[in-house]
């Protein structure tokens, strides 16, 4: 019964999906920019702005719009505050002496991200590899999502001290 009801009244706009796909595909047709390149541009843009202000990465939107003869880039990047303010969410704690990431990687796909200044590191990260970054990323996410924000970040091959 609910199914019928929802089918009667649902407006599940797949045309919005079509519109968005069309917009992106024409953008790359016109600019010869691949979707990957657009995504990379967006990532870099957010990374640069994040050096100065805290931004809501999940709500960032970079789009291109065709105007009379040109294509304009619109970036909508909500600012949460200055970069030196303390975040509302307690930062994850880091295990002492562990290597930490020295850069924030920005993922537009996830709404909940650590604030960038929490990820600023004082320790050198010369030993970090891409795998390390990915691992730290995962652990940081986990830490943020857990209620205690206390999951330690470990080396990929070292046993976690929490377990």
């Amino acid at each position, binding site marked *: 019964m609910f199914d019928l009801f929802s089918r009667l009244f649902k407006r599940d706009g797949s045309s919005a999906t079509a519109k968005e796909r069309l917009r992106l595909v*024409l953008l790359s047709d016109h600019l010869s920019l691949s979707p990957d390149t657009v995504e990379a541009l967006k990532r870099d843009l957010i990374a640069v702005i994040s050096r100065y202000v805290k931004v809501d990465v999940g709500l960032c939107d970079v789009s291109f719009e*065709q105007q009379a003869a040109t294509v304009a880039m619109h970036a909508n990047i909500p600012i949460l505050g200055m970069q030196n303010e303390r975040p509302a969410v307690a930062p994850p704690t880091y295990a002492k002496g562990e290597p930490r990431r020295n850069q924030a990687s920005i993922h537009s796909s996830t709404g909940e991200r650590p604030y960038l200044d929490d990820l600023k590191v004082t320790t050198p990260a010369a030993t970090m590899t891409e795998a390390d970054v990915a691992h730290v990323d995962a652990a940081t996410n986990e830490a943020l999502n857990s209620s205690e924000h206390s999951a330690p970040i470990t080396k990929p091959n070292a046993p976690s001290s929490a377990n």
Partner: protein
Amino acid sequence: MYDAQPEPQPAAAQPPPKPATHRGHAIVITSGKGGVGKTTTTANVGAALAARGAKVALVDADVGLRNLDIVLGLESRVRYHLLDVIEGKVSLEDALIRDKRSPTMSLLAASQTREKDDVDTEKMRALIEQLRDHFDWVLIDCPAGIEAGFRNAVVGAQSAIVVCTPEVSSVRDADRVVGLLPHSLEPKLIVNRLRPHLVRRGKMLSVEDVNAILRLPLLGIVADEPEVVMATNRGEPIALDPRSQTGASYRSIAARIVGENVPVERPKTGFFARLSALFGGR
């Protein structure tokens, strides 16, 4: 047949079309993507123009994949084709097939056994020029794609109609074609196969969505109705059916082509389409 018509006379020697007092206007009907309704549009717009009394020539430029004869129900009468004329084997008058339902409309069929590259572009231009001497309107059914066949179909035209369905792939290809058409052709848009009830439910791109991309003057909107399929099955242009709403869409397109100030009407959804939309979501 929509009206009981007297049995057509046996193919007596058809008088060649008389030269018009003014030179006719050639329109290429194109889309980039295949299967969006170029041929159906050509046949119906041609029939609607002819029903207004204009002299119309339809040219199937889809060499190797001819279909316009089928849609018009003239396939059994094709003897000679476009390449025969271009290569000087037969005269234009001999190759033109007079449509008995629309006596002012003639078809120049494409050859089925040749390839698009066999057509010489300059000779194609000359052929369209020649047709313009005899007909008010020359409608050129462009093949899909943007290669040699497209160039040959476009070369003799003074204006262009872009047919586009409300689908991502169709809009993308139409966008590409608009970029390839000479600006002098001032392309106009026909949005074909629109399903208004799907648009209302946010399940199909609207005419506005399509034209936000293409930005062309809107020549008409044609709904996706089963009666179009049934008319094509019979080889009878729906534009000749006075009761058909889709036919009326084609007739109003013809009116706008000849310069009448007729507003573009939005297709309404029939009762059964609304009902099935409610329960089937399609």
